[in-house]
Structures are given as structure tokens and as C-alpha cells.
């Protein structure tokens, strides 16, 4: 099949950027979307052009490196699938596709479809962990975790940090990402001691990074390749509200305050 691609090309963070049209010829339906771009890129390189930059690594849908908008949908049309596992059999001859990078102030464009998502790491650094230094752990079975809680924690922990939720959200909110980590750790007994502090710190960090707020509309849930549910945002809100009014701890030091 043959496709027409309109791809966002931007040389560097300071470049203004524009959409450029490309033709992808003889696309095999068994190719993955990224393999289709690989082929386009090889042609561009041989013609002396710059290949289209896009982040990718594992190509198994779990490292969270890949992701861009295809016709206005993060990771493209296939539900619960990162773009690296989207296959061309979902398209037909003559389709016109618009490829754009994730757009958010907190995700500056590095080049073309490649954005910098270190803001997500900083949200984790603010409190997305259980503080247990190596060596101080009790026996694994000393901590009993009910199976349903463990399963729900796993559902939330499946987040791959790709940023599609931010990209799809009309407010560029990282609530689904932040809520997923708060839910994963907050559901487990191991996560209880820091639960309130974690919610306060991570929520504050997400705002400081320039992500927007959540308006509970569910675009994030619809595009999440790991099908994380909006419920995690409610849990984050609950933990944050409780912590805001009841926590006796002072905010963590080592901050701007």
C-alpha cells in the first residue's frame, strides 16, 4: 500500500518547525509503524536528507520511549498499544497520516517527533518510591499483601512512562502518570508510611514542571498503552486532599522552600 505522511519537522528546540509531506511507497501490512518510518528514513538518508527523528528502543511496548501523535491520537488508533506495536495492517492504501510530537510545555521538542520527558523522572524523584535502603528489608513473606490489592497495584505499576496521557490531555496534565505511581505504592502496605508525603510532593512537582490540571474527561485513559484507569487519578486526589488537611509532616526539605 502507499501512504501520504505529513510529518512535523523541527531541527532543534529553537527551530520553529513545520509539517512536511512524504510519500511512503509499497508499505507491507505486516510492518510495524516504526519499521515503516525506518524505511522512509533510509530513503531520506540516501537522498542526502535528514531522517525523521523519533525516540524508540525496545519496540516491545514496554520501555516507553516511543510515541507520537498519528492523526491527532497519541500512539495511533490501536487501543492499548504503543506506537511500536502498531502494525500497518490497520491502514489502507491511500491513507493520509499526520505525525506530530507530544505537545506540552513540560516536554520540549528536541527534534522532529523526539521530545524530552525528563519532567516525568523528576515527578518520581519527588516521592515516587518507598524509602528502603538496600539491606534493610524484612523477609519477603513477612509483608502479606492481599492478592486483590497486589493485582490492583500491578495494574497501576504497569505504566511505562511514555507520556501519551499528557499528550492526549487537552490540559497537558500528567495526572494519569502521577496517579498511577501514587496508586501503585499507596495500595501496598509497604507504601503506607510515606503515602501522604508522597502525594503532596509528587502533585506539587507535577505542577512545578508545568503540566496542566485534570478535568476528568478521560482522553488519557483512552490512549494509555497500558490501559491505566482514571481511578488512579481519583486515588491521587483522595490522598492529596487527605494529606493536605491532616498530614502533620512538614514538606520535605531539599526543595525550593
Amino acid at each position: 500500500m502507499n501512504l501520504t505522511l505529513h510529518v512535523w519537522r523541527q531541527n532543534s528546540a529553537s527551530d520553529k518547525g513545520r509539517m512536511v509531506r512524504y510519500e511512503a511507497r509499497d508499505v507491507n501490512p505486516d510492518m510495524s509503524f516504526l519499521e515503516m518510518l525506518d524505511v522512509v528514513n533510509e530513503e531520506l538518508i540516501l537522498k542526502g536528507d535528514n531522517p525523521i527523528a523519533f525516540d524508540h528502543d525496545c519496540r516491545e511496548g514496554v520501555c516507553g520511549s516511543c510515541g507520537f501523535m498519528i492523526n491527532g491520537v497519541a500512539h495511533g488508533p490501536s487501543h492499548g498499544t504503543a506506537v511500536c506495536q502498531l502494525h500497518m495492517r490497520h491502514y489502507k492504501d491511500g491513507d493520509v497520516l499526520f505525525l506530530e510530537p507530544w505537545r506540552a510545555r513540560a516536554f520540549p521538542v528536541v527534534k522532529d517527533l523526539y521530545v524530552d520527558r525528563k519532567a516525568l523522572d523528576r515527578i518520581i524523584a519527588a516521592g515516587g518510591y518507598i524509602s528502603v535502603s538496600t539491606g534493610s528489608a524484612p523477609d519477603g513473606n513477612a509483608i502479606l499483601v492481599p492478592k486483590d490489592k497486589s493485582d490492583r497495584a500491578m495494574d497501576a505499576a504497569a505504566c511505562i512512562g511514555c507520556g501519551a496521557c499528557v499528550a492526549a490531555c487537552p490540559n497537558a496534565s500528567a495526572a494519569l502518570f502521577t496517579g498511577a505511581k501514587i496508586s501503585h505504592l499507596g495500595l501496598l502496605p509497604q507504601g503506607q508510611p510515606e503515602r501522604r508525603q508522597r502525594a503532596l510532593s509528587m502533585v506539587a512537582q507535577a505542577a512545578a514542571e508545568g503540566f496542566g490540571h485534570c478535568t476528568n474527561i478521560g482522553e488519557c485513559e483512552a490512549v494509555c498503552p497500558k490501559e491505566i484507569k482514571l481511578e488512579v487519578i481519583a486515588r491521587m486526589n483522595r490522598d492529596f486532599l487527605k494529606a493536605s488537611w491532616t498530614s502533620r509532616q512538614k514538606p520535605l526539605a531539599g526543595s525550593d522552600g
Partner: protein
Amino acid sequence: MQLDSKVPSGPIEQAWDRARFDMKLVNPANKRKYSVIVVGSGLAGASAAATLAELGYSVKCLCFQGSPRRAHSIAAQGGINAAKNYQNDGDSVYRLFYDTVKGGDFRSREANVYRLAHISTAIIDQCTAQGVPFAREYGGTLSNRSFGGAQVSRTFYARGQTGQQLLLGAYQALERQVHVGGVTMLANTEMLDLVVIDGRARGIVTRNLLTGTIESHVADAVVLATGGYGNVYYLSTNAKGSNCTAIWRAHKKGAAFANPCFTQIHPTCIPVSGDYQSKLTLMSESLRNDGRIWVPIKAGDKRPPDQIPESERDYYLERRYPSFGNLVPRDVASRNAKAVCDDGRGVGESGLGVYLDFADSIHRLGRQAIVERYGNLFEMYERITGEDPYKFPMRIYPAIHYTMGGLWVDYQLMSTIPGLFVIGEANFSDHGANRLGASALMQGLSDGYFVIPYTLGNYLANTKLEKLEATHGNFRASEAAVTAMTERLLAINGNRTVASFHRELGKIMWDYCGMSRTAAGLETAIQKIRRLKDEFWRNVKVAGGPEGLNQSLESAGRLADFFELAELMCIDARDRNESCGGHFREEFQTPEGEALRDDEHYSYVAAWEYAANGAAPVLNREPLEFRYVHPSQRSYK
């Protein structure tokens, strides 16, 4: 080159305790004055960086990915072994040790393996405390499954995403240290050279992949945790970015490379579908617990699987290995798949595939049980192939998955360059010639959480290091060399893309240094690799310039190193006149076609020393002693 394995004397059960007691400790107040660079942020790198920072060292950690959480450990599916014996089924540290040495076909160092088995239990405790959501029983205790040829249930798992969850645990510990200033994280940064001063590793030279800036980093010790080199085959289950550049450039600076030809071919991957294919996708081998592997009995039988009656199917693993059946170790399962496909009995369009059939299990356990165990894997299979594995058997074929070889390290995990430590898949130490399933995660975390924090401290406490600046001549020379290589690659401006060279190299390696090897084939491969490498340096076309993000340049630099490593792999494979584990030389097999070891002549680690200016690499041998697990012919009949 002198190879001193530094294995403690005395009973193996107490070796690690004794080694730890003999280590010199760094005064707690002085730790922050020591700087350590950790290259790589996978299970080994992230756990090492976090733990070293917890102890108080000043740590710099770098990864080429945009975030440490994206390291390729994230893609490990099946699980992590630990000798907890929670199932009361006869497991013990000694049994895990025994299984690992035997599974490695007696080409690993006993003391290292014993330590790994010994530490395994602490890893589970640590990860559980971090909030890794391991599978649980209804009573809230940890759940186990048997995995990859083990006859006890010692594998802990988090659905089919165990690697992801363990890595996120280590990543979170790492970010916690980033937050308090213990670790400086440099993402999107690639190590391009190791700097050795007065015979010791004293820093590295890097390229910032977003800006193109070349930078020097001084340290008191360098830890490489950069994973395996399976991408030398182009098609592998590794991530696209996984590469050998860090270990290869350290090798060129004097670190011996051990057993480079020991590569693992994973039996259950989705078969290749076309030339454009960019990587192979692994289906967790846990699938073999409930799936039955078969091909048609008749060669060339192209009927769809549901029209082949039971009597015309060959469940060849169950037939040949009645006691292990579909759960034989990876090397055995892979070789048998290749053998039936070579017979013309392979399935799928390419004929390179065998069926992995769940019909019996679905019938016996119900569809829901299968969904619960493998749901995400089945979905992934359907996404990639467009076929529903609940209705049709999966098609699978072996693919390059893991490299047991790596930089040579002693018991302290230090390479032949003092101050350069190598952990995780990047070193050679624990898996011999074949790695058992669910052992890679165990080794990465063992090295990172529990070994390197001790041994690195011991090195620092015993070593007097001069204070250095990045302006030192050796740093300047490395920066110049790295810059010159970049310029050279960009200046060639030939007619072939990096990927086209890489595909061709991969094909050579798969054909001649893959699942089965011959002396003559390896000789051919060496000649072909040299010719291709020459062409690469004359005719490659690298897009763009030295500044800013340039993925074409990144892959060109990595491929340049793969060429050199590929040649060493073939030399090593040609030199090892025996079959063992993943290294199968057709000349050396039993009448039944099983691997035939030669313990008399090849019971050693082949540690290769780099020779400059195109001279042949020098072989150093570390003899292997088996005082506890006595070498025997592996039998899974």
C-alpha cells in the same frame, strides 16, 4: 596477562562471608569524597548506583536512553529466581547453585555462581520492600512458578512484566538518590571511551546525545553495567539501542573479553516476517509451561494447524526428552527447533517456525486460567501477528536473546583494568555457556545491590588515588580520538545506510556464528566480516552533522564496534573445539545430536586481550575448577 580470579579459599558456602570480612572498609565520613561513575541504568546499573549513593559515595550514573527507566531490563518478562524454598519443594541455595552450574554446561566459575544463589533470597526481600508487585497467593504470600527447565518452583514474577517491575523498583531507588543529591543522573549520554591513567580506570569520555557535546568525567572508579551485545546479530530481542560500545572500547583499553562466542538463543520468539524487520519479539518462555511444541510429521505439510490430526503431529521435545519435555533448557529447545525446520518440517510462510499450542491447556484449565497466566503475552502476539493464539497455535522460532560472554571479571567483579568494574550482562561471570531462565534478573540485581557495594569499597579503601582534573592529557587524548572518529564517520558520505550494513553483518553472524557453527563456516564469516567492515569505512552514509540529536551517527558508531566484536566472536567460536551450552559446533556432537563437551581441553574461560593495529587477539586462559558440581553430560531425557 595474569588472570587472578581472587576466589576465596576454603568451603564455597562461606566464601562470600569470608571475602566480605577480609575487605577493607571505607570510613563513612570519607565516602562522599569518592566519586564513582556507573555506566548504564538497567537492573545492574540502577541498583548499583542507588546502593552506592545510599552508602554515601558521590555517584554519576549515565544512560543513553532519555530516562533510566527505559533501560532494556524493562523488557524481561518471565521472572526472577531465588532459593527461598517458599514452596517447600526441595529447593535450597545449593540446588540453585547446582542447577545454574549444570545449566551453564560447566563453563562458569563455581564460586561466583554460589554467591549468586546465596544472595538470591535477599534480592526478593529487597524488591518486595520497595513495592515490586510480585504475584501473590490469596493468603497474601508470594507466589512462585517453575520456569525454564527447573524442577522446583523458585521463580518470582509480576505478571509477564517482571523485568519492568524490578527495574522500576531500582529506578525509584535511584531517583530517590537523585532527589537527595547522591546521584547525578546523565540521561541521553553515551560513553565513548574509557580513560586509564597509571594503569587504573579514572574516568570516561561521553557524548551528550541531545547536543552532541563531548565531555570528560573524572572518577575514582568506573562501573560498566551496559548489558549484552546481542545486537551484533542485528535481529535480536534486544532493544534497538542496545550496544557493545562501552565494553568494546574498555576492551580496547585493556579489559579482557571473556567467552565472546557464548550467546543464548531463546527458543520462543515470534518468527521473522520480512526484510524490513527491525527486531524480534520474545514470548516469555513461561509459555512452555502450558504450551506444547509440535511440527507436522511430514516434511512440507502446509495444511493449517487445525487440519493436521493428532496422529500426524510430532511433539518432538516430549518425544525426545520424556522427563523434561517442553521444559528443556533454552539451548536444547532452540537447537531442536532449528533441526526440525532444517528437515523441512517448519511451519508458517517462511518455514522457519514451530507451533506452540495451548489447545490442551485451555481444554484442561479453562480459558480463564490461561488469560490470567499469559493474557498480556497472548495480546502481544495477536497485535504483532494479527492471529488469535486462543484459536490457532502460536508460531515461534529461536532468536538471539542474551550474551553470556562479556568483559572478564574476578570474584570482586573487577576487570583486568584496576578500578574498572563490570556488572550484569556486561560481564561474563555467572552463566557459563548457557543461562537458565529467570537468572538474568537475579544476576543483575545481585551484582548491583549486593556485590559491587562491597567490592568497590574494598578497592577504594586499598588504593591510593591521585586527585585528577579532566584537563589531564589522557582525557584530552580520548576526547580527540572520539571526535576524530565522529568526523571520520561523517566524512565518508558513501552510498549505503548504517542499517543496511548492520543487516548484512547480522546475517553473516546468524548464518555462521548462530545456533550451530563449524570451523570452516567461522573462517568464512571472519573473511566476510573483514570485507564488510572495510566497505563500511569506505561506503557508509551517515546523515547530519556532529551537533544535536543524530541517531544515524549514534548507530554508525555502535556498528563500527560491532564489526570488531563480531570478528572476535567468530575467532573465539573457532578456537573452542567443543560444543557446550549455546555454543554448538557441528563437528562436536554425540550420536544423538547433543552437545559434546571437551572438559579435558576446554574447561577454561577464554579471556581475549586486544591487540592494536589489526594484530590477532591474544588468548588468556582461566582454568575452571569444579570442586562441588562435577561435570557430567547434561541429560534432560
